[in-house]
């Protein structure tokens, strides 16, 4: 059963991508990794649903 949304959710997806890129620009590799980790935690908690999180993890794994 799929609960993870994979359809486009943003009104302006390009702007969302830009915001993420912007956050990493000029950061070192270590800073970027740390920033990503904090982001993942913040967003996971915002979703607040273990099933969705696990599906997201498996999609991320599969795609890599």
């Amino acid at each position, binding site marked *: 059963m799929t609960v993870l949304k994979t359809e486009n959710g943003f009104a302006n997806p390009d702007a969302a991508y830009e915001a993420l890129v912007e956050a990493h620009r000029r950061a070192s590799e270590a800073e970027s*990794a740390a920033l990503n*980790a904090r982001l993942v*935690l913040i967003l996971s908690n915002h979703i607040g649903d273990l099933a969705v999180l696990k599906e997201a993890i498996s999609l991320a794994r599969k795609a890599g």
Partner: protein
Amino acid sequence: MNRPAANKTVYQFGYRRSADQDAAKPARRPVVIVGAGPVGLTAAIDLAKRGIPAVILDDADRIGEGSRAICFSKRSLEIMDRLGLGDRLVEKGVVWQLGKVFLGEHQVYSFDLLPETGHRMPAFINLQQYYLEGYLVERAVELPLIDLRWRNRVTAVGKHDGFVRLTIETPEGQYELDTDWCLACDGARSKVRDCLGLKFEGHTFEERFLIADVKMSAEYPTERWFWFDPPFHSGQSALLHRQPDNVWRIDLQLGPDADPEEEKKPERVLPRLERMLGERKFELEWVSVYRFNCARLKKFLHGRVIFVGDSAHQVSPFGARGANSGIQDAENLVWKLALVLNGEAPESLLESYDLERGQAADENIGHSTRSTDFIAPRTKQERVLRNAVLQLAPHAAFARRMVNSGRLSVASEYDSPLTTPDREDFGGSARLGLPVPDAPLEDSGGKRFLLQTLTEDFQLLYVKDGARPNVPEGLRMTAIGEDLIDREGIFTQRFDATPGAAYLLRPDHHLCARMRSYNGNRIRDALARAKGLAK
């Protein structure tokens, strides 16, 4: 275990020859317990309270000083209270319930393990394990049904049809002893487990920890303080916790590459502690360097050999789930074994020990593994994620909740075939499968806590509504509102009690059935089910 810095003997016992050593053929006992640690002693005392004699064999003859368990949970104290040691433990122990977690110098998280009143026992006490063992031994020797044999080392275990034969080494040579049931309470390195060729499956954590007990007079509060990346021990973690006699437990994380022999040397230990404790004068009581394991036997029940405590499962100490779970193992097993030995329940009842305490072991291993992984991440990327939680903690409540310095031991909730499912809705903190919550009540003699009034048998709490019902023979009933008065209304609230409601408690005080209005047939069925008699 590591040798103590100053190997002081706290209690010394003597070897005494037993008549069994001179018997022409091996004597036969109903129960032999291998190991006089906290778990074996608890089991023996509980058996004696149920009229079952037990022999305890232990290879040592002393209880030495050493840094092992210090934190004993409310549930352990409740069990010890039933065995007659509650007051003594609480009197000697340091009572605590608050934990604080610091990142650097700043507090990021705190927890209160018992935010409500109306309980006889505190959330936790800290007490050196040797005191608990000493008190248990003193209690055991008062009981004529217990035959405690020091310097009796079990060297071989033979499984036979209907009994187990133990080969025992003493200072005066070897003898054999037969038993209907052998309780293997011989700790994490169990010889009995080796003799049966059983695998102890799990994980060893790479990280090394320095555990030091120091004596000092200090004004720190009696709270559990845990630091990630403290200024005095950069990049690592540290723990500070008070014990009786002005002794403080200090854990310092050392990293996976630390050399255990080097790290134990005073010239290495003292500067580390001075950085933490500053100008304060202190004395080293004990130092050891540990690497922790989480492991368990797949099954705890192997015919007539039953594994209890650390021999069955081992956890890392973050969360204080070792001795505390072993004590609950002992209590869970003993009432069942007593029913089986008395012919009141089938042997298959013991399967529920395996099931219920197996669930508890998985839960404890899960918690202690997650805590250890948080404290000592296994990979670089895990560390990045862990540090992200710590960095967010001052800013976001969700991250504070993720900070894991140990989730402290609470009673296990059993999902068990011995439990009769609810047919009606119940609220309150009483839950099927959990031990019943305590509550302040009154009887003709004055104030009494609920748990003080409970016995060693199955019992029914009935909320009075008219005449007393006729309960099945042999079942003890307490009427709330007649035998015990709930003046403060706390019982009513915790049990979501309404007039006529009935609650069936197992001998270990776990709630196994309840109903909104007393029904004799339902109680009889629930009782049969809880004794493993249901088809």
